[in-house]
């Protein structure tokens, strides 16, 4: 068995192992073991990938395997990774690992919770290794559907409403996507021959422009729904606010990245002509996402809502950068996906831990927590600083790269939207610092809070693994961005061949 398939097999085996467990206490240990193994595998994969590149392997995709699945329709199970997918896999395994520890003390239906969570992770891992549009779509839907139960059963607040809204909106996105993918498939052999779902093969042909004009918007919006593209972002605040901690972490941290990754890898890579032609519409929409999300976060009082709107803003930035269609901005987009994934997972983990202690998520009911629970508070400050783009943490590297890339365009339109998008940094600083000030500093508003205890060992594992990653990217961004950059080169070359700026 090849190393990439293991990323799907390990979660499936973990699920199978959990199914046979009688004792519910063992469930979390087995889950942690399985996902720890997955994290280890991700480390090995990064190492193998870098070693192969170092040895001079310049293939576009490494570790490729190809198995025919449905022969008559030319559907394959094709897998392979480049620097971008390796980075996304590493991100996913860190967040899932942290998510398992963040839900260590779940009180009911443990078995079902961990099974659904790991099933979701299976879908995400499968999505990132797929090079075949069919399997990619299959894994995409597989990742979305467990959300319904995860939010519906273990959520809080108006959980049934949120679960239904989220599931239906995301599935609506995948409906558009399905039509888009079928359109790509039937135009994948314009000069005759067999149609294919293989991304690499499709990227070698030029899909006829009239077809691109129809299927690019469908595909982009289809992925965009998951990437919180305005006006299809409304599932995100409700969904994140109602979801249990680990699910918010995984969803904002990883699942929303499926949208950005897909928009980039499928919509823009395979249909660059239409992307270039129509990008202005989506650039406007994503700029609205960026600004609107940030303002939305200012207006909220619930910590989870604040972070959910902040995710809309940050993920909007990912799509914004991808649409800029040059190497620097795209590099920034990938960095932003990883940075935001880690940071927002950290945020949601901390919010969950605070909520578990104070039993409220309203910022005006809390105060002065820094003195009482310093570990969690400091972690919260670090997450906030990463979010507002402080140098030395991952957010800065990502956003800096994006804006530099976006500003490289000479047209006024691009420069104006870039300036507008940049202003979101200021707004972000407003809501982050305001929350920190109210929440952590100042006098303790509630004397019950003085009895609160700081993070337990499993919470520390979760938090430290995330903070460590955020800081590592912030302090040494070059190895990551060069890994991404090398893999971006063929994609950028293809775009430049058609639309030289």
């Amino acid at each position: 068995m090849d190393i990439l398939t293991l990323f799907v097999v390990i979660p499936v085996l973990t699920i199978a192992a959990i199914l046979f467990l009688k004792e519910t206490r063992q469930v979390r240990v087995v889950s942690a073991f399985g996902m720890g193994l997955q994290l280890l595998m991700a480390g090995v994969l990064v190492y193998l990938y870098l070693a192969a590149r170092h040895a001079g392997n310049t293939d576009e995709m490494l570790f490729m395997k190809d198995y025919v699945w449905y022969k008559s329709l030319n559907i394959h199970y094709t897998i392979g990774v480049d620097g971008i997918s390796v980075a996304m896999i590493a991100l996913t395994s860190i967040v899932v690992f942290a998510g398992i520890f963040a839900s260590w003390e779940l009180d009911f239906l443990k078995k079902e919770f961990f099974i659904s969570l790991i099933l979701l992770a299976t879908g995400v891992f499968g999505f990132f290794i797929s090079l075949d549009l069919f399997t990619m779509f299959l894994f995409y839907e597989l990742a979305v559907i467990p959300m319904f139960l995860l939010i519906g059963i273990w959520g809080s607040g108006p959980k049934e409403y949120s679960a239904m809204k989220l599931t239906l909106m995301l599935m609506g996105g995948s409906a558009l996507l399905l039509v888009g993918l079928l359109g790509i498939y039937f135009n994948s052999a314009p000069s005759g021959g067999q149609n294919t779902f293989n991304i690499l093969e499709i990227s070698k042909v030029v899909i006829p422009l009239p077809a691109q004009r129809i299927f690019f918007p469908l595909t982009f919006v289809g992925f965009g729904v998951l990437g919180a593209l305005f006006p299809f972002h409304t599932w995100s605040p409700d969904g994140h606010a109602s979801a249990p901690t680990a699910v918010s972490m995984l969803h904002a941290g990883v699942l929303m990245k499926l949208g950005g990754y897909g928009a980039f890898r499928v919509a823009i890579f395979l249909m660059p002509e239409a992307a270039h032609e129509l990008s202005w519409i989506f650039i406007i929409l994503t700029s609205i996402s960026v600004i609107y999300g940030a303002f939305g976060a200012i207006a909220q009082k619930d910590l989870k809502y604040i972070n959910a709107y902040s995710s809309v803003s940050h993920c909007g930035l990912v799509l914004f950068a991808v649409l800029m269609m040059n190497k620097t901005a795209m590099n920034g987009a990938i960095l932003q996906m990883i940075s935001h994934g880690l940071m927002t997972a950290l945020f949601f983990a901390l919010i969950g831990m605070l909520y578990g202690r104070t039993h409220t998520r309203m910022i005006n009911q809390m105060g002065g927590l820094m003195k009482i629970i310093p570990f969690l508070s400091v972690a919260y400050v670090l997450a906030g600083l990463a979010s507002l783009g402080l140098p030395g943490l991952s957010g800065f590297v990502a956003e800096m790269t994006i804006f530099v890339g976006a500003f490289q365009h000479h047209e006024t339109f691009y420069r104006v939207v870039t300036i507008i998008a940049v202003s979101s940094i200021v707004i972000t600083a407003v809501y982050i610092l305001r929350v920190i000030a109210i929440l952590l500093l100042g006098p303790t508003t509630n004397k019950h809070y003085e009895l609160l205890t700081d993070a337990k060992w499993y919470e520390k594992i979760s938090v430290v693994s995330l903070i460590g990653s955020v800081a590592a990217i912030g302090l040494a961004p070059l190895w990551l961005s060069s890994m991404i950059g090398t893999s971006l080169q063929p994609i950028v070359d293809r775009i430049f061949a058609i639309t030289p700026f």
Partner: protein
Amino acid sequence: MSSGTFLIMRHELLLTIAALLVLMAEIFVDPKKKRGISTFAVILLGLITAAGFIPSPEGVLFGGMYISTGTRLLMKNIINIGALLVFIQSVTWINKEENSEKVSEYFILIITTLIGMNFMISAGHFLMFYIGIELATIPIAALAAYERYKNKSAEAGIKLILSSALSSGILLYGLSMIYGTTGSLYFDQVAHNFTNSNLQILGFIFFFAGMAFKISIVPFHLWTADVYEGAPVNITSYLSVVSKGAAVFIFIIILYTVFPVIITTWQKTIYVTSVLTMTIGNLFAIRQKNLKRFLAFSSISQAGYILLGFIGGNELGMAAVIYYVLVYIFSNLGAFGVVAAVSNATGKENMDDYNGLYHTNPGLSLIMTLALFSLAGIPPVAGFFGKFFLFTAAAQQGFYLLVLIAVLNTIISLYYYLLVVRAMFINKSEAPIEKFKSDFPTRLALGICVAGIFVTGFASLLFEVIRNLSYGV
């Protein structure tokens, strides 16, 4: 008649023998041991289903009235598998005290309809087709009224017989026009003499309407919900899966072989009816509280999706339709199997009764969820693959807008399927359905359904076999 003839039409002959054997068993078996008949019938049908897979030559019998090809054999086998599952599922119910008087009637009638369906699928002549379709319909009306002491069951029976009589009338009227203008009822000669005159188109429309009744396509669906609700659960599942599947099979064969000349005409007809069927079926399903009615409307919308495989007139479409019916058999019978199990144990059939079912009966809830996800087309279960192929077949001919409407409809359907999932997993209940243990036949049938739901999707071999047998216009 040579021995080869027997091999060619073994489905029909064996089923006739089975019906006679069950009849004799009714006469000779001691009244106290009547329950043994159900096991006997299940085993008989199991053997016949297995015998269906013996390879046999293709052939044309009775001067072209009866045609047996690889595709049609496959269709018959699929129908038999569905019927076998229904048989296994109904053992528990039929062995109940109040039904002990009429065990063999149930099996004789249902085997008779199966004979009709098999003849229908093998038809090469409209007369044979008509006889088959009547033989497949009329006994079901008797079965729908099986629990005649219940008002609703009796009502279902009379509704089914009246509406099917009407639809048969319309169908025959259309056939008479086709006969009048082409001078023949043989499929190949009708196709050959078809000139696309107005009267012929009118005849075709009447034929289409008649078939639309059988498959319950909007606007000819009005009988469906009432009949499905009133009939015993097992008859409902038989109607919605096997009966509908057989009608779909012969419909696509006739469209592809008899009416290829007017493909643009029936593509328009199917376009409109398919959109209506999906949308109306789905919208009505949202409001249903009784699970049998709920599944009735869901099965109406499923017929709309199946029409997407028809519309392209390509062999991918036929393959997708056959494959989808197979998938649909496992999925829908899985869902009906759970409804039947709960209904047998507690008599409850409403969605509210299912609140909190997961906490008392996790196994049944999981099977129900899998079946509903398969119906909605969620991976990794087979329904996803089935729907994907149907949509691919329509997209191949450029019907992208129709595909978009269909996928948006699957989102609506996902909503109401999730309502059931929500009831079972999320909703709390004061008095949930007690924990109960189903007997062996129920569990066997559900086990087969679950295996089918998983295997038919991942095993691409199955689809490839179907694809190789299919043909286009």
